């Protein structure tokens, strides 16, 4: 890996780390959700520091360039994230639907009560 790429990766990892911590402090991100991003930024940092190990491993796995291996790790990481997010959205959607139903049923009940009073 070239020196420029390594510096770039270290910078990226630092920026994502700082951003993550700041957002948690501003309570715009939950602590449990932030952990995966912090792990991600550590992976970036490790790949740029121990680039020899990455080069060795990528050669063993048959990659033409070590940087391709780094990209593969990142893409895999992102895919997992997207999948987890999709699951979360589905659960949230179900919860909103249940709330929607609960509110409607409650309102209906109240209306019936009001009608009975009249």
């Amino acid at each position, binding site marked *: 890996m070239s020196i420029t790429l390594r510096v770039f990766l270290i910078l990226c990892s630092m920026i994502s780390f700082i951003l993550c911590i700041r957002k948690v402090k501003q309570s715009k991100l939950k602590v449990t959700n932030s952990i995966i991003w912090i792990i991600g930024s550590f992976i970036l940092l490790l790949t740029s520091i121990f680039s020899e190990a990455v080069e060795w491993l990528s050669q063993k796995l048959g990659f033409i360039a070590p940087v391709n291996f780094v990209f593969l790790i990142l893409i895999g990481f992102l895919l997992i994230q997207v999948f987890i997010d999709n699951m979360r959205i589905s659960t949230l959607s*179900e919860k909103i*639907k249940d709330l*929607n*139903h609960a*509110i409607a*049923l409650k309102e209906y009940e109240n209306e019936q009560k009001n009608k009975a009073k009249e």
Partner: protein
Amino acid sequence: MKTLIIIPAYNEELNIEKTVKDVTSNTNYDYLVINDCSKDNTKEVCKKNNFNMLSLPINYGLTSGIQVGMKYAYQNNYDIAIQFDGDGQHQAKYLKALVDEIENNNCDIAIGSRFVTEKKPHSLRMFGSILISMCIKATTGKTIKDPTSGMRAYNKKAIKEFISNSSLTPEPDTLVYMMKKNMKIKEVQVEMSQREFGESYLKPLKSIEYMFNIIFSILFIRSITKKNKGGK
């Protein structure tokens, strides 16, 4: 038996009055209009006529509308719940046939079918219907001649099953799920008319998506439904 007609309505201000009057004049079952947060005057029309209406605060689609209707039917101890379109396509005079079918012939779900004795016409829509029928035949071995019919009656057992799984939709794939759960499904010949006003839930591009969803669901998800423990 205590019967509830569930009438989901989304932007049906022009049809809903006629539909509900059709139900009340032809039957003496209870009915419930589900107003799925319509943007037009559906709610006002219902209020003005003093219809029995449940109004959802957020628009969430047909599935959610039927599900809340089923919840209502379950909470109020109804024996039979029937889904009935609010757009004037279904005719209330056939409702009794569905209820009779459940009462007398010991089935769990009765479908108001257009093609029990009549032949299917040749059109693109019917091609979709045939395709879904074939998928149902392949996964359950049973023949449903009109799987896309939106006029279905569920007995208490089916209502309970319906609300116990929130992924169930009022669509053909649920029929496969119910059959896998050992429910008996029968079809009753009915007639349906064309919608007079307004737009259907199924628009051209949407119907392709619909077909894809239903067939995928039947073949890969509902087909591996586990039977309830203890058989019947």
